[in-house]
């Protein structure tokens, strides 16, 4: 396949960015999107052009590091995949592909397609944990049976990879899906119930301070989420938040 790539180039956080156009030839449909970017970068290096910076690590869809906005969609046109799992067979010969970073005020650009998502870490610092020491002196793991349905739902929420596609897809750049996934995981498990009130209040407070937008229930986040995290989690967090606010 021969393609035309239009890629956001920005030297650093303070620089002004712009879209640059790069043709690329002989792309194999079996390549992953990031492998195509590797090939492009090798070509750019050969020509003395600065290679395109992008975040990536595990390349199997679980680390959450890759973060490209491809043809107007976080992680591109395929569903339930990250950019590293998107394969070139999803595109056609002659296509023009526009590649931008995940955009949100709370995710400043580091360089080109790499962004700073440490706001997500700070939300987790505010309450994304169970306050139990790691001494191992806890009760036996089977001492508290947990309803399989609750355990499964907690697991589904816990599969969030923290990539930020939800934020990038949301017209308000809201982080509600991300935050609600963590709040839900703990709200569904007995281990998390003890601190449920403080957790939801603190995490939401931090989310607001980071400059993420509000949720207006458009559901774009759920559609673009590579792990299929459900909007139900947002509803659950809203319930948790409301009841926590009354408890106060």
């Amino acid at each position, binding site marked *: 396949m021969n393609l035309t790539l239009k890629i956001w180039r920005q030297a*650093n956080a303070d620089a002004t960015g712009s879209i640059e156009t790069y043709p690329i030839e002989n792309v*194999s449909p079996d*390549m*992953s999107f*990031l*492998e195509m970017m*590797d*090939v492009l970068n*090798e070509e750019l*290096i050969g020509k*003395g052009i*600065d*290679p395109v*910076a992008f975040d*990536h*690590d*595990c*390349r*199997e*869809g*679980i*680390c*959450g*590091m890759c973060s490209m906005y491809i043809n107007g969609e976080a992680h591109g046109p*395929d569903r*339930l995949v990250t950019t590293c*799992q998107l*394969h070139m*067979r999803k595109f056609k010969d002659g296509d023009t592909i526009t590649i931008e970073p995940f955009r949100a005020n709370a995710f400043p650009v*580091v*360089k080109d397609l*790499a962004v700073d998502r*440490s706001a*997500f*870490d700070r939300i*987790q*610092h505010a309450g*994304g*944990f*169970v306050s*139990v020491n*790691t001494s*191992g002196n806890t*009760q036996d*793991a*089977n001492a*508290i*049976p947990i*309803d*399989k349905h609750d*355990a*499964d739902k*907690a*697991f589904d929420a*816990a599969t969030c*990879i*923290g990539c930020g596609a939800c934020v990038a897809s949301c017209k308000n750049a809201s982080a509600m899906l991300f935050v609600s996934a963590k709040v839900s995981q*703990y709200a569904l*498990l007995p*281990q998390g119930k003890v601190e449920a009130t403080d957790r939801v209040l603190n995490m939401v407070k931090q989310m607001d301070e980071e400059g993420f937008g509000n949720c207006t229930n458009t559901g774009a986040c759920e559609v673009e989420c590579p792990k299929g995290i459900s909007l139900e989690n947002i509803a659950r967090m809203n319930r948790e938040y409301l009841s926590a606010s009354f408890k106060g």
Partner: protein
Amino acid sequence: MATLDSKIPKGPMADKWTNHKSHINLVSPANKRLIDVIVVGTGLAGASASATLAELGYNVKTFCFQDSPRRAHSIAAQGGINAAKNYQGDGDSTYRLFYDTIKGGDYRSREANVHRLAEVSTNIIDQCVAQGVPFARDYGGLLDNRSFGGVLVSRTFYAKGQTGQQLLLGAYSAMNRQIGRGKIKMYNRHEMMDIVLVDGKARGIITRNLVNGQIERHGAHAVVIASGGYGNVFFLSTNAMGSNVSAGWKIHKKGAHFANPCFTQIHPTCIPVSGDHQSKLTLMSESLRNDGRIWVPKNIEDVNAIREGKLKPTEIAEENRDYYLERRYPAFGNLVPRDVASRAAKERCDAGHGVNKTGEAVYLDFASAIMRYGKEQAHVKGLNENDAVLVKKLGQDVVRAKYGNLFQMYEKIVDQNPYETPMMIYPAVHYTMGGVWVDYNLMTSIPGCYAIGEANFSDHGANRLGASALMQGLADGYFVLPYTIGDYLAGDIRTGAIDTNTPEFEAAEKAVKDQIDAFVNNNGKNSVDSYHKKLGKIMWNKCGMSRNAEGLKEAIAEIKALREDFYKNVNVPGEANEFNEQLAKAGRVADFLELGELFAKDALERTESCGGHFREESKTPEGEALRDDENFTFVSAWEYKGEPSEAVLVKEDLNYEEIEVKTRSYK
């Protein structure tokens, strides 16, 4: 010749750890506040150690090269974590886990460390459940288990095919709690460039901020290396793109012995290579071998027809399939250990039975499991067990619930539906059992410098059993290092903060800056990746699944030549003081180019076959690996002397008190 003291405590095996903990020095809570510890890496080992050390009261500085500690490659571990809980009542015990691990490691690991690992394994599960890790449960609400290779019990706890993710997020959450309290200072997008020794002790590190290129000095009373394995020396592996040996290699160059570098795990079930553009390989969890059956066509005509696209695997009759693991190893069948399964796949493919275009793939087939589960479900639900369509659908639902994410991953990469047609798999580099040499306290041969998790060598011998890497990472980080480090730090309560304005820090920083300047000013013509790929080819062809003296000698010469060429002709674009991925990669590849040579040298020296290390000169008439216990029951610890070729071998003899050393058989 220098000797190494493994510091294994005296007394009966089962009491060693308990007695040791009771007698080592402690640091009082007030004094812990005066002590700084650096942790490099935030995988299971690094994250759990950081959290626990901070809870105990130490001031922790933790570093990772990713944009968040949650992205460390432990996140990608799929199948599960072992623990001798015996919840299934199938005869498991601490001793049996200890025994299985020693045997699985082909009698090349240290007994006392492995016994301790088995002892603390049960605590890990309790701990993780208390943290809210959502393990799989049965309908009674209790924890579920499955079985992994090389064992005859079900002791593996799991969270679908994302166990590593859930455990890492558990450790990350424990870290977050301490970051929030200010007890851990987290440095994301920072790479450790070197360790700094003062009076022979580890007293800090030099780092590079990967966003702006700034070189920084960080002092501490102890340095913990938790930077994972070095599988990426092969270029293609299941490791993450950024996984590297540099932290381990830098401390090696400053005096830490590097042990058993040639002990590499080639995992049998990975998605085969599709072309030259390939940047990494994807694992399909070993848990799939619980339900998947591995086979190749018996007849070469069928193989050819499949390669030409004229025949589908589902069209090959049962009697024309060779379920070679079940044939060769009836007792363990598809669940033989990884090294055995990988070699068996290579043997069949070398004999011409490989089922894809490259001839390097075998089938992993779920059809019989789907029908078996489907029948069971139909029976439970009172439906017609003879309705093949219904049974298949019900069976597929069960398989989806167990392995859904893995099947989805396979389909996205290969573009085939594994519910309908068998998966194609082939072995790939996955894990390195070798690593930095450590004593029983997990301290390296540099005082005050520790290595934990995959970065050290200690627990898996020559082959690691499935679901044991997660166990070791968390055991080291949560339950071992935080105790043993106190014994050393007790001597540091009066030291005071470490001053980084000293000649030692100055010199280390200068060396780092000089190397960076040399790279960016090199004006070479070949990209960093081109060298990494060449190194990977040498490693895979000559130091891969089977090795011989001639090939290893060639590898040593070729890697040395490649390294020299790299320094002359590598092209590192961009500047030192910016976000520069090529520059970061150049430093990592430079270290791989040294490690690769030591790896080959180690493999050449060890003329026996053991575990994942298969020397063609040392095999039984049936082609199985043949150990040489008389001459090789030791750990090969290499001391740095300049060029890898000059490294000096120091042997740590392995003594087996509890377990009788036998020929490993899975027949």
